[in-house]
């Protein structure tokens, strides 16, 4: 297992290098004078020149790159123009909000998609199979920001079941004591049920919008791999040995079918992290996506760069975790390495 961990860590290194190089290139690609952008639109030539020296833009590209790496190594992503705060701190304080939303959406998506996919495969050709197909095709076709708005209109404006789409918690409630930064977990840990329900109600609509969007690849893959596993030789052996239908479907078929589903989680995270930006915009969710969008509007580029880098590093880390999870489930990978 340790060997597996090390070998997978080694494969993540080129990804991280690629990510760092690309984010560096993105800052140099800024049309016109990057210093002017980083200085803001109303900056004086003097201020621009100052920024240029500060950013090291007067140096050669390799030197700049080294400077960028050194900054990264010191956890320095620059400062936000509009708030003057270090981007790292701002991202760090906002990350739990995004993480809570994304993980909750993932749990919802997995919780719906996998049973749906399994049922669709076991009852192939029945109404549940057709339902699965409709849900998956419709799910990927729905722009996530549009679903979010639609939900807000129906459940907030029309039915008034959901709270106003504005943030993580009603203004009348104060956030729970900071432990993990996840409101649901923190409020549950401190036994603050009022805040727990409040946070859950705020979380529901954005998380469901995201879950619907990312459900499709999971459900499709579950159905497909269940179907192929159910048709395989060892399932016939299991049936020929008279094993109970539940054992055949879950212990034998499902545990094998879940392997390809784990690999598709990478794509699901790509969907979720992207959708995150849009959903946070719709629901005024105070995470890093909204932070980046607000920075974009004010042409404040350091936060945008920091955001892209953070997301990419997170994504590489998630992919690593997925690889390890795969190794845990599949002995062939675990023991081969």
């Amino acid at each position, binding site marked *: 297992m340790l060997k597996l961990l090390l070998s997978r860590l080694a494969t993540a290194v080129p990804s991280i290098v690629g990510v760092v190089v690309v984010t560096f290139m993105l800052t140099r690609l800024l049309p016109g004078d990057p210093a002017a952008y980083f200085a803001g639109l109303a900056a004086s030539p003097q201020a621009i020149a100052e920024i240029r020296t500060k950013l090291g833009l007067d140096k050669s590209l390799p030197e700049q790159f080294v400077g960028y790496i050194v900054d990264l190594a010191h956890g320095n992503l620059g400062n936000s123009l509009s708030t003057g705060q270090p981007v790292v701190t701002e991202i760090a304080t906002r990350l739990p909000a995004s993480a809570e939303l994304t993980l909750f959406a993932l749990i919802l998506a997995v919780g719906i998609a996998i049973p749906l996919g399994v049922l669709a495969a076991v009852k192939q050709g029945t109404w549940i199979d057709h339902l699965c197909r409709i849900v998956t095709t419709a799910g990927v076709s729905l722009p996530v920001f549009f679903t979010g708005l639609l939900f807000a209109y129906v459940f907030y404006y029309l039915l008034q079941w959901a709270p106003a789409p504005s943030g993580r918690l009603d203004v009348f409630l104060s956030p729970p004591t900071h432990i993990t930064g996840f409101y649901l977990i923190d409020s549950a840990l401190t036994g603050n049920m009022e805040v727990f329900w409040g946070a859950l109600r705020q979380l529901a609509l954005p998380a469901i919008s995201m879950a619907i969007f990312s459900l499709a690849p999971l459900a499709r893959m579950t159905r497909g791999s269940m179907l192929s596993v159910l048709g395989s*030789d*060892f399932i016939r*052996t299991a049936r020929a040995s*008279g094993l109970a239908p539940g054992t055949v479907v879950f212990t*034998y078929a499902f545990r094998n079918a879940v392997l390809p589903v784990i690999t598709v989680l990478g794509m699901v995270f790509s969907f979720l992290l992207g959708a995150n930006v849009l959903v946070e915009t719709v629901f005024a969710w105070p995470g890093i996506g909204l932070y980046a969008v607000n920075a974009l509007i004010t042409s404040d580029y350091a936060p945008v760069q920091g955001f892209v880098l953070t997301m990419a590093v997170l994504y590489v880390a998630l992919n690593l975790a997925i690889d390890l999870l795969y190794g845990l489930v599949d002995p062939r990978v675990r023991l081969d390495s």
Partner: protein
Amino acid sequence: MTAVPALAVEDLSVEFRTRSGIVKVLDHVGFSVDKGETVALVGESGSGKSVTAFAVMGILDPAGKVTSGRALFGGADLLALSERDLAEQRGRELSMIFQNPRTALNPIRKVGQQIADVLVRHGGATRSDAPRAAVEMLKRVRIPDPERRVEAYPFELSGGMCQRIMIAIALACRPALLIADEPTTGLDVTTQAVIMDLIGELAHESGMATIFITHDLALAAEYCDRIVVMHAGHVVEAAPARELFAHPRHPYSAKLLAATPGETVSLAELASIPGGLPDLRRPDLPACRYSGRCERRIDDCTKPLPHRVVDERHVVSCWNPL
């Protein structure tokens, strides 16, 4: 000879629904296996040997349907049992081993657990003493170092080892009938002999009836008491192995034998029987499905096939047998 056979298949017909129409894969198939007897089911690829076995076990694909017949086993008709009752019998009273042992085992479950699953399911052991019972089973199929091997995954074992595991799973509950569907395909020649000897011995030990499905006439002659020849979903001839080799009566059996010069040549390699199997989707299949390739065809051959009893144990379905 009046004893009740372990398994008697009568009049078994099976159809498959496919996109290009209904395929009549089995047509009134009948044969029987006595207790302690080993019967070979031979015939070229596509003749319906596996489908016969699957139908008896009740594990046909959803597209397949039994349209007529009975499979009498232990006083009950297997084909009439509910899926639940049949599942009780499978693995306990009647078992099956398949070709390609590597793919026939669950790739991500330890082989010991796979044996234990069957034992626990059929009350052969409790969850707590199943691991020990699994080791016992590995000993019975002569796997060296059984304590360590129960912890192995199929991919860590050779094909021959995997087939022994399959045999252990099939025999775990000491069934009365074993169906072995080409159990040695994909194994090298020495392993083939070892596996066949093992099945033969275990069957002999427990007085188990065995159906051995194969392409390989030589193998069938060596290990089986009787041979049932299938062609295009028909049983064309059934006879004691030695008699069939000495006096084949059906033109197809004769061709098979004539085409088997050495001991190691299998039917799969034979291209010498002219023509192929008829298209089983045709609505106007001839009464004798071999008539398209037969050199002994006579006018009577268009009539429904007869069951000619050569002697008590030798039956042939042909209007103009040798």
